[in-house]
């Protein structure tokens, strides 16, 4: 018996780009068998997104695709054709889970909606991931990571700590395509829950995961601020992006990058200033009375923040992030580096935790990928196979699994079904 947690689960993926594929990757890497359906000839758009080695585009070498589709099998299929739709239904009969991220009503138009498919497979769990969900005024709106970040309220609150001039500093989208990944994580959690639920309830069900809601759900505590404190401080602090808490999120530039300073207590600031400027720092006229009496962070930063920062920078700019972090941590001061991807690569911490995994691929050679978002002590996460080539498993699935002949495969290819 396999030592992988989801070795008995069979998943069909009819999804592209990030949200659907990340959801099924989280299952594939725990042992589930995932068949990924891709558009004939074109394949998943992630294949065209990159990054590419040396920036030369190639559909089998896209970093985004390779990362998101480890452990999966690829089959080309066009469900818009009659044969294609029929093969799709045959596959649905053999799986536990279908994950799709097509615009709402697409599956219905193809005759592949939950009502139809659950009649073929009553235990089917169908997870639909879309920007705004299956119903509601925006459900047919076009969206991507940028749009979802703002429609959930996330962008309004970034960057943390606000900006000096809201007119010149627009709301900020988190780097990369994080909202797409958040939707994928939510879909995976929901799907896993539905598998458990199937055991208790005895039936499958349809899961409607909305990306906007997934992120708005992350934002939950901002909303009660409004209703708990309708005319109070929190309205002002969180209702406006103009910088209120100056320097509260202290990025300190160093020789080779940035560190972040999380000091909140008077003694931490004292110890930090001693590190930066020696025991004599308090005798400096500028800091007279800075740490007298009961310490209040906001007042401290408002009155002495600028001077403190200039003293700290004189020290940090002469050292690397590693040196500053080590010195601070040795005194119990909460400072950590703002890691770049290079830092993560070189990190002895992540190496010890075996977070990265090296995967060989026929088109790219060996590349390093991030591993599991969590570790299970008995049933490990593992990447046994790299992302598939386009249609790599057509024969295995159509002939081996579904019993079509090789000649039938040829004619399917010619007519664009696969």
């Amino acid at each position, binding site marked *: 018996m396999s030592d992988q947690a989801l070795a008995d689960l069979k998943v069909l993926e009819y999804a592209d780009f990030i949200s659907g594929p990340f959801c099924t990757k989280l299952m594939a890497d725990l042992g589930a068998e995932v068949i990924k359906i891709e558009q004939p000839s074109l394949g998943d758009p992630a294949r065209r997104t990159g990054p590419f080695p040396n920036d030369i585009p190639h559909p089998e070498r896209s970093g985004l695709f390779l990362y998101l589709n480890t452990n999966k099998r690829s089959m080309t299929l066009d469900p818009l054709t009659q044969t294609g739709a029929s093969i799709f239904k045959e596959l649905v009969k053999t799986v536990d889970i279908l994950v799709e991220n097509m615009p709402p009503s697409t599956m219905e138009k193809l005759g592949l909606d939950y009502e139809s498919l659950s009649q073929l497979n009553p235990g089917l769990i169908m997870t639909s991931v879309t920007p*705004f969900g299956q119903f509601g005024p925006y459900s047919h709106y076009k969206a991507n990571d940028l749009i979802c970040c703002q429609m959930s309220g996330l962008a309004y609150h970034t960057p943390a700590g606000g900006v000096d001039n809201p007119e010149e500093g627009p709301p900020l989208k988190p780097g990369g395509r994080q909202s797409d990944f958040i939707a994928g994580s*939510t879909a995976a959690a929901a799907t896993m829950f539905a598998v458990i639920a199937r055991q208790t309830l005895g039936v499958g069900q349809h899961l409607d995961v909305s990306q906007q809601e997934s992120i708005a759900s992350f934002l939950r505590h901002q909303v009660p601020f409004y209703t708990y404190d309708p005319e109070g401080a929190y309205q002002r602090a969180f209702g*406006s992006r103009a910088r209120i808490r100056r320097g509260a999120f202290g990025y300190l530039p160093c020789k080779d990058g940035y560190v972040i300073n999380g000091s909140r207590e008077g003694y931490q600031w004292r110890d930090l200033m001693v590190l930066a400027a020696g025991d004599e720092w308090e005798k400096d006229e500028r800091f007279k009375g800075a740490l007298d009496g009961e310490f209040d962070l906001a007042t401290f930063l408002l009155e002495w923040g600028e001077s403190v920062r200039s003293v700290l920078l004189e020290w940090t700019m002469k050292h690397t992030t590693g040196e500053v972090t080590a010195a601070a941590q040795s005194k119990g001061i909460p400072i950590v580096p703002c890691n770049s991807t290079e830092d993560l690569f070189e990190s002895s911490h992540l190496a010890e935790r075996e977070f990265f995994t090296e995967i060989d691929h026929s088109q790219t050679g060996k590349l390093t990928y991030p591993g599991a978002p969590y570790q299970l002590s008995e049933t490990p996460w593992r990447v046994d196979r790299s992302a598939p080539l386009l249609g790599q498993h057509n024969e295995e699935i159509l002939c081996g699994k579904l019993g079509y002949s090789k000649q039938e495969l040829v004619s399917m290819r010619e007519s664009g079904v696969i």
Partner: protein
Amino acid sequence: MPKLPLEGIRVIDLTMFWSGPYATNLLASLGAEVIKIEAIQRLDGWRGGAAQVDVEKPWERSPLWNTVNTDKLDITLDLTRPRGAEIFKRLVKIGDIVAENYTPRVMKNFGLDYPVLKEINPQIIMISLPAHGSTGPWKDYPGFAASIEQMSGISQLTGYPDGPPRMTELNVSDPTAGINGMAAIMVALLCRQMTGKGQHIDLSQIEALTSFVGDAIVDYSMNRRVQPRRGNRHPSMAPHGYYRCQGDDLWVGISVSSDEEWQQFGRAIGAPSWAGEERFADSLSRWHNQDELDKLIEGWTIKRDHYEVMNTLQRVGVAAGAVLTPAEVLTDPHLKEQGVFQTVERDIVGVHPYPIPSAPMKLSESPITIRRPSPLLGEHNDYVFGELLGMSKEEIQSLVDDQITGTMPLGI
């Protein structure tokens, strides 16, 4: 009422603040019995979050805490005392899941780490959600609000192009760990059904976040390149960003991904002459000239309401969306129709809307609502000690006298 799928699952919940409690909040809303353990010597730190002072029982008034602990039960227990630890072990014996997010040495110091709990109950599933994982050189670095995003690498990729790394106001690391925690627990429950054995889940909050920028890591592996901060811009698409609209600090996001979409965009905004210019005709040219392009677009949006811009552009198939303020999240027509918030009455704070924890996953067979508001401190002491563990009233009273349990924080 249909049975909730996680009914019969009991969670012993030591988590605090947001990341762990978010995961257990999801479990509670899906039917699990979640017993949250605090101590009168040490309340969940999140209760101090944004609570008003100079009022009665400020620890019951935190909008943060009250939002993330709906559907749970609450007891108080001092685990530093042998009697407290003993009672905890009795709960583990009748529990299915133990959840905690301390730095790794804490459970060990209590004498309550996984090897000990496994002896008591081999079926127990324990999930730890420490900031940096249970092993490795960073494991004892304290995780603090503004550290995990930075350590994970995502901050480095976020920010205006000429500025330092930035982070999200809402600490995306916490709920990310929470949602992954829920998924991990489901997986462990599935395994347990097959093997009869529990296991330990080690969820490093950093690693959960780093997985969101996996393609940037592969880029480094391929090209030894650290991707730059781009603000709201896209590596190849333009226009792509947020534009100011009418009113005080209101914005709209617009993203055009093809030449066809660009044509539609031009028509929708009234076909100004600049929309037809050569230098904006194809995506590469638009990308190169996006500084100018952004100014021209903002000249149009600044005169209009942000919802109006969104609807006008979406009608012709252009991706656009209003940048919602917190007040607008509450009143947005789409979120309203999706039923994301539920009005709940709670002692001491009254009636407020709360987001339904499992709202982002609408399940056709398991409709979810908030069944009970966040508990009061120690509200379920009698139920848990008396009914679940069979203690007598005298026994419970002696625990109160010894300050191992109680309903009022010490030192207030």
